[in-house]
């Protein structure tokens, strides 16, 4: 799966120096590929390196080594200086963060926010209304500033802004984690639709295995910066081969669930790998 697809990530690594010597490996030899309209999940606990990988895709973190390729062209490690090149780069991959409040300009209304993005990329500003409608925001929300929107509405706006530039890949970092379940379901349905209709490839970073099972085709399980298991989501989540994947699965509440199972799975993992 590594050499085909729209987004190809080849052996990216990132480590950070630790105080007092030594280095922390945030991501080591992470490779994957996503086809147009495909969807890949990255799961793991906090500190597993899943956000580092997501940030390397968009260029917020520069990989120590390895390449990220979109549609056959490798992404430069540095953001290009020329305006047209910078905008073209932005159209390759867009990212939606967990807390949309921090990534939206508090002074702009939802409508202005989208029109700014559209204008910057030389598109018709009139498309803003269409985008808002697509993510289920109405006239009233178009005139509201981020502060006046609810968490779910802000997240829709963040998605609409990402879609405004017509990206080929959409990276979502815990983008539905903070939402009410009924709103989360609406956003998941929206993402499914975007994927099928516009052929946008999704990279979905999440700690929630049930959501990942629902929305992704392939999955990458990360622990301590390493990929411990990767493959089709259905297989990895039904027949996990790594004890860490088994621990993550044992921790998911369901009918007849016993939290002690997860505690036992943790002990098994510690015994197996330390």
């Amino acid at each position, binding site marked *: 799966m590594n050499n085909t697809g729209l987004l190809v990530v080849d052996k990216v690594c990132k480590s950070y120096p630790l105080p007092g010597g030594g280095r922390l490996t945030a991501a080591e030899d992470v490779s994957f590929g996503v086809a147009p309209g495909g969807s890949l999940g990255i799961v793991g606990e906090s500190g597993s390196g899943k956000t580092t990988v997501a940030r390397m895709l968009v260029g917020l973190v520069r990989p120590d080594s390895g390449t990220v390729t979109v549609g056959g062209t490798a992404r430069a490690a540095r953001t290009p200086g020329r305006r047209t090149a910078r905008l073209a780069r932005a159209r390759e991959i867009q990212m939606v963060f967990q807390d949309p409040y921090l990534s939206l300009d508090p002074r702009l209304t939802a409508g202005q926010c989208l029109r700014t993005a559209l204008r910057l990329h030389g598109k018709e500003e009139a498309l803003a209304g269409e985008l808002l409608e697509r993510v289920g925001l109405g006239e009233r929300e178009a005139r509201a500033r981020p502060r006046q929107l609810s968490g779910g509405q802000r997240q829709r706006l963040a998605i609409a802004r990402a879609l405004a530039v017509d990206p080929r890949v959409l990276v979502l970092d815990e983008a539905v984690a903070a939402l*009410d379940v009924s*709103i*989360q379901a609406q956003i998941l349905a929206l993402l499914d639709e975007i994927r099928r209709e516009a052929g946008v490839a999704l990279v979905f970073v999440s700690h929630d295995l049930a959501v990942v099972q*629902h929305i992704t085709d392939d999955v990458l399980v990360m622990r301590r910066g390493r990929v411990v298991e990767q493959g089709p989501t259905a297989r990895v989540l039904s027949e996990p081969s790594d004890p860490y994947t088994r621990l993550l699965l044992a*921790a998911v509440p369901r009918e*007849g669930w016993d*939290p002690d199972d*997860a*505690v036992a799975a943790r002990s098994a993992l510690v015994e197996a790998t330390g």
Partner: protein
Amino acid sequence: MLLTIDRLTVEVPGTARPLLDEVALHIAEGEVVGLVGESGSGKSTTAKAALGLLPAGATASGSVHVAGADVLSLTGEELRRHRARTVSMVHQDPRAALNPVRRIGDFLLERGADRTRAVELLAAVGLSDPERRMRQRPHELSGGMLQRVVIAGALATPPRLLLADEATSALDVTTQAEILALLRTLRAEHGAGLLFITHDLHLAAAYCDRVYVMYAGRVVEERTAAALFADPAHPYTRGLLACSPTLGDTPRRIEPIPGKPPSLSDAFPGCPFTARCPDAQPDCSSRHPAAVTLPDGGTAACHRIPAAVPAPAERTAP
């Protein structure tokens, strides 16, 4: 009963509807009770009422009894004792409960534990090297470890009732499972009651003995956990179950509930769920549904549910 909340209505000025509308809830000793709902449904307000803590400027009617004491009429020393001894609350963000410039040990000593007991508590909540933790400050510990510290603090004087308000929502699922296993052991040892507040219906149904589902300040369904999975009665409960993805061999379509959770500026003359309800009939929006007892002993408040024991109000309503 350890906690009995009877027809509690809490109103604050400037809102179109009450924060809580005739909420009734009870917890027996040693029972784990779940309280589920979306943002603004009144879960936290309900839990805080057990501490005698109402929003500023609120007026309340109804009653809250914890271990025989009428909480809403407690004042002064009695109220302090109630909050310090009888009931403890654990919030979502442990960093908000801990003073960043004080040591972990100080946090426990402040709550009435002596040094030996404090070390024991830290060990009991599963922290390694408790002696060293006593001397550490909050920034040196991870979120999961801090939540264990807060739980240790809540148990410093073993409470009769523990309120956990989204206490595990911000943690990794693996850490969540460990904390939940811990809370269950502690409940078994002390016989305390636990009110477990969460937005995750699957988690509540998997972990609790009984579950209350709240919507727009009202309890819409109360069931045993098993019945909730097997046969949810209220359309909102069914909607919540249908819209949350679950792990399973056969992936099913999730069906979003249309619309959004009601805010405090929405008033409802009838059933608050009408606008989002797939089973709504024209008369649903004009009168409030009374809670009806279901054949298995649970209750649900919906006009479309045939009552096993019809409530008198239902018969006389037009």
